């Protein structure tokens, strides 16, 4: 059961130094040499892949999922501390290291706790079970008589520590799905707002982001991007940078052009001043006709995401039809720190330090690019500036890898601001046509939608810029495939058909950005649903509840939202002068399978300037079991603020050759004075599965705002971003069409708001401020 094989403790400690230190001790090199030959167990079904206990009782948690700034490193430790009964301070985390951590999949899709954390919990439960059995043998007592406290197994005066039982040895155990999990009623750590361990070093400057990391003797690399996306390099004039001190080399490989220098400033200046001739290229569509372009793009296949009854027939027979088209602009990730990576190529082996959300996938991509074996590439995760999806971290890693491979010296590549805005892969343009039919009684009889998004044949990776430019092996196809999620709806209408037309091309490398597709699709669906509710003369809560009758958690969530938001019906807020006030309701069941979120937005619309101010968001979320309520609230707030920004302001602009929104002046994001207040009711269900929280609350934001703007002005905004110009145009066109810009009278709430007979037990999470005292 508990074998006597030693672990690679010393090696791991060496790696720990490597991860956290800027100035590297000389011992580092031998640690790296060991690393290359190590055989740390990483198989997904082995306890040793996730957990080790050393001779002093300290626990090391190996996680393939990584900390992106969402607080999961603390939450994952909470899970282990709880299940093993060790102090959280006794746990050290090693994350996203291709030699040391199990390949638990990318850190994306709000799956770190839901999938990764649950695997880790099972590993901890398996380990605990084995430790108790071993302790029983040692103490001569039945397991039932044993209790664990702070890593010590006790029964009366008899005791034995985890360190004595396993310290420094392997568990050599398969993950046991039957290993008993702790009863949530006995939780002491999970469900509590434990303070994040990474915040103190982040407020003192001690924290080492990948942008802060470097190796002794490393060169600084900067990439010289072509003036147009598809340009070919014709010639380079190296004399143009003669005289810039410290320049070591101009690296050219097909259309990949870079400079490497001894100093960072030298590299920056050289990259700015290097003269090169590039061919012209004008392959981008005309942005003013983007949606015509999307509609005209070749469809490679249709994904039918739901099909109930006969939507076409029911639509044809409906007594009232509603049709609308929604669109959502191209977005950039907008990381505050541009992407960065460090790479070292030595003795045929590549090591790359990267903030990639998928170190294991990046290893495969880098190996393919440089024609190396996967086993000759080692990717080490280091946290970077928040990325919110696949930004350019992987591209910076490829740049650094290619330069290190060329130079035979370590190279650090730091992207510049205009590179990050101009060249990171983008959230693709999204277009949806929607149709609904009502019968004579205002009941929905049909819902049909057609979504236009890029195909997803590229799978889980985005092709690497450096590989493509240098003419090296590159991934095929476009990502991401899963952006059709939430194009189907959570409401039980009798006839529904939702289809995603997958497009053969899109203007920029498509990528996922927070709640990818789910947010755009929820915008279209929930804003259109509001149109349908108005056509049916129904209150938006009443209308949703009517068609959620078979979903008790969704129903309870909406009823709690009514209370949190103090909902009093549509158009219940007064309008004075130029400023119109309104409230909008929205709801999502994420991917129709997990986290529920409902929201009410309060907005003000200035009819003269067209400016929208989002004043307040009321959010209710049910993500099942809450691991760290403080972390969850932080994520809800972040989702709301970031997505208000995306909804009101953000749009990548481009001409026929390149992105033109290349800094914060022409790609503005939300600023402090514009941030809404946020009220949160977090439903904790300790006995349910823990679901993801990093994305779902983003999904509801654009539709809540759109619906609130309609409530305020009677005007529908169907195109994100809701810029002042678009608002003014919509108001103008409504006024010219003779529409009374006022909201129709809607029946007031017609249901019982009593939630005391909730079908599922819940408890409101303790307010964090009160917890802190």
């Amino acid at each position, binding site marked *: 059961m508990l074998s006597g094989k030693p672990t690679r403790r010393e090696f791991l400690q060496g790696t720990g130094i490597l991860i956290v230190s800027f100035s590297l001790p000389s011992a580092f090199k031998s640690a790296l040499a060991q690393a290359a030959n190590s055989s740390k167990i990483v198989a997904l079904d082995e306890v040793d892949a996730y957990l080790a206990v050393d001779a002093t009782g300290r626990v090391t948690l190996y996680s393939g999922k990584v900390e992106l700034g969402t607080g999961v490193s603390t939450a994952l430790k909470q899970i282990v501390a709880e299940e093993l009964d060790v102090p959280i301070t006794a746990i050290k985390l090693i994350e996203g290291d291709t030699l040391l951590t199990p390949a638990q999949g990318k850190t994306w899709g709000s799956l770190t706790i839901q999938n990764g954390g649950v695997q880790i919990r099972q590993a901890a439960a398996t380990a605990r079970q084995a430790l108790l059995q071993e302790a029983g043998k040692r103490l001569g007592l039945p397991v039932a008589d044993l209790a664990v406290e702070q890593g010590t197994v006790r029964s009366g005066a008899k005791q034995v520590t985890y360190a004595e039982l396993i310290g420094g040895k392997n568990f050599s155990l398969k993950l046991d799905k039957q290993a008993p999990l702790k009863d949530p009623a006995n939780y002491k750590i999970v469900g509590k707002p434990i303070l994040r361990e990474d915040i103190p070093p982040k407020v*003192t400057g001690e924290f080492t982001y990948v942008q802060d990391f470097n190796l002794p003797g490393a060169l600084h690399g900067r990439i010289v991007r072509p003036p147009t996306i598809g340009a070919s390099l014709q010639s380079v004039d190296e004399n143009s940078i003669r005289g810039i*001190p410290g320049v070591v080399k101009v690296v050219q490989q097909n259309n990949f052009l870079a400079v490497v220098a001894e*100093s960072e400033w030298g590299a920056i200046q050289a990259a700015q001043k290097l003269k090169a001739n590039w061919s012209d290229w004008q392959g981008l569509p005309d942005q003013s006709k983007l949606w015509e372009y999307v509609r005209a793009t070749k469809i490679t296949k249709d994904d039918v995401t739901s099909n109930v009854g006969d939507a076409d027939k029911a639509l044809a027979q409906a007594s009232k039809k509603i049709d609308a088209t929604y669109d959502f602009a191209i977005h950039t990730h907008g990381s505050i*720190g541009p992407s960065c990576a460090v790479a070292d190529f030595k003795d045929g082996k590549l090591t790359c330090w990267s903030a990639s959300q998928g170190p294991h996938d990046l290893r495969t991509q880098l190996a393919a690019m440089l024609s190396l074996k996967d086993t000759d590439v080692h990717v080490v995760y280091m946290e970077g*500036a928040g990325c919110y999806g696949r930004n350019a971290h992987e591209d910076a890693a490829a740049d650094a890898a290619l330069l290190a491979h060329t130079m035979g010296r370590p190279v650090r590549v730091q992207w510049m*601001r205009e590179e990050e805005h101009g060249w990171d892969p983008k959230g693709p343009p999204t277009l949806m046509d929607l149709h609904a039919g009502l019968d004579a009684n205002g009941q929905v009889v049909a819902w049909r939608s057609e979504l236009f998004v890029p195909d997803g044949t590229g799978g889980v990776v985005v092709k690497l810029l450096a590989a493509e430019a240098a003419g090296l092996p590159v991934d095929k196809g476009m990502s991401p495939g899963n952006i059709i999620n939430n194009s189907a709806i959570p409401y039980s209408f009798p006839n529904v058909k939702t289809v995603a037309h997958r497009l053969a091309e899109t203007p920029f490398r498509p990528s996922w950005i927070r709640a990818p597709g789910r947010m755009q699709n929820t915008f279209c669906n929930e804003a259109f649903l509001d149109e349908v509710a108005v056509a049916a003369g129904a209150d938006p809560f009443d209308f949703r509840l009517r068609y959620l009758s078979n979903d008790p958690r969704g129903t309870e969530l909406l009823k709690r939202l009514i209370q949190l938001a103090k909902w009093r019906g549509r158009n219940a807020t007064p309008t004075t002068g130029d400023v119109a006030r309104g409230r909008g309701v929205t709801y999502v069941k994420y991917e129709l399978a997990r986290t529920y979120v409902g929201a009410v937005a309060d907005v003000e619309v200035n009819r003269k300037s067209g400016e929208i101010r989002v004043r307040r968001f009321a959010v209710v979320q049910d993500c099942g079991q809450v691991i760290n309520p403080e972390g969850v609230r932080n994520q809800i*707030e972040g989702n709301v603020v970031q997505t208000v920004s995306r909804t009101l302001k953000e749009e990548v602009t481009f001409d026929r050759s390149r992105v033109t929104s290349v800094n*914060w002046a022409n790609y503005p994001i939300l600023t402090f004075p514009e941030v809404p207040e946020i009220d949160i009711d977090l439903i904790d269900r300790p006995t349910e599965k823990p679901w993801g929280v990093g994305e779902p609350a983003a999904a509801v934001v654009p539709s809540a705002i759109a619906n609130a703007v309609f409530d305020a002005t009677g005007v529908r905004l169907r195109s994100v971003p809701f810029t002042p110009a678009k608002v003014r145009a919509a108001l103008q066109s409504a006024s010219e069409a003779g529409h009374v810009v006022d909201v129709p009278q809607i029946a007031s709430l017609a249901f019982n708001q009593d939630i005391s007979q909730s079908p599922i037990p819940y408890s409101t999470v303790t307010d964090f401020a009160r917890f802190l005292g």
Partner: protein
Amino acid sequence: MAAKSIPLHVNGKIAHVSVDDPDMPLLYALRDNLGLRGPHFGCGLGQCGACTVHIDGNAVRSCVMPLSSVGKKKIVTLEGLSLSGKLAPIQEAFVSEQAAQCGYCINGMIMQAAAFLAHNKNPNEDQIKQALADNLCRCGTHLRIVRAVKRAAT
């Protein structure tokens, strides 16, 4: 161009940095020459605030501040706020309010807020928001940052 040695007054000490270009922005001297990684590179354009330091008590964007213009002025970086080994009240407030997600912008938030609070002892929320209006956060931690600054002021 021969390398020049430039004296800088940083976090209470004189440090000499050897540079080829005296017009190099201060940020690179702090990060690359002196190993001070509190100030971050965000845009190099003075737009986001991630690189903010104090110069004679004022919050300044070090990514657009040429070394040659610093002279004998006193520079304080994020690291300089807690030289005694104890967190400054503004840093403690950020921890108490859990006012970070990725935290990359937090250097700028703390340095901007600290300079603001030095002259505004009891600001209201709107004044705090105005003081931070030119500092960008992408994670959406704004409400917590405002609460942290408020907490530090009281």
